[in-house]
């Protein structure tokens, strides 16, 4: 089954949590990019991206996350990515993105703890 793509934003402890559903690829990335830009334009410098309910992500998705992280880097901005899936951890490792201001967390709770 192909699932519809959606990006929903919730706020906890003043930090936007971006819940993403579906497949993140070259087709759906523009929508994600737009939402992330809006958050940054509105002043967010810490973001949580919840990837628990995505079915797929590739380099296009990681590219979008990396560009967002780079845009807020000089202002101490940080992105926490929630995913417990091995496949996603694996491609983050291959990409080498984790060294920067991007942190992988297993759960929302641990992401919020790191941020507070």
């Amino acid at each position, binding site marked *: 089954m*192909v699932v519809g793509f959606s990006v929903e934003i919730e706020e906890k402890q003043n930090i936007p949590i971006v819940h993403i559903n579906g*497949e993140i*690829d*070259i*087709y759906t990335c523009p929508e994600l990019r737009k939402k992330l830009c809006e958050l940054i334009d509105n002043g967010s410098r810490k973001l949580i991206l919840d990837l628990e309910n995505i079915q*797929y992500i*590739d*380099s*296009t998705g*990681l*590219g979008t996350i*990396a*560009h967002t992280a780079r845009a807020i880097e000089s202002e101490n901005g940080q992105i926490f990515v929630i995913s417990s899936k*091995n*496949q996603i951890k694996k*491609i983050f490792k*291959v*990409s080498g993105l984790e060294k920067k201001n991007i942190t992988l967390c297993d759960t929302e709770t641990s992401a919020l703890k790191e941020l507070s």
Partner: protein
Amino acid sequence: MSNSSLHMTLDIPCASEFVGVARLAISGVATRMNFNIEEIEDIKISVSEACTNVIQHAYGNITNQDSQRIYIQSTIYDDYLEIIVKDNGEGFDTDMLGTDEQKEKSHEKFGLGLGLTFIKSLMDDTSFSSQKGQGTTIKMIKKAPVLDL
């Protein structure tokens, strides 16, 4: 051994909404080979990366949209799955892969130069050929799962 009886060809437009179609078709083939979920994910990502590269890089200055296609071929062999992703685009000088010039170009286009890195690390064997004016072909191989009998 002839394997054309286990050969599939998919010919899709060079358009982002069709990358998911390629992914679904190839996951169907991979499932028939008893790859596990993680291996199927590796294969799906690799095929997507190759298609994404075609969309982003192959047909830059070619204006006839109708001729901008992506060809995906897969063949099931006894102990591996072979996948070929091909375009008839501009091609490029493969010597520039890994150079600073290429990295800069990648970044301009919103890329990270990750596509080929991903494919190489997720598949067991990858070979790349490209000719200016002729197009680009990437061939990838994933070894079949060894079944416990």
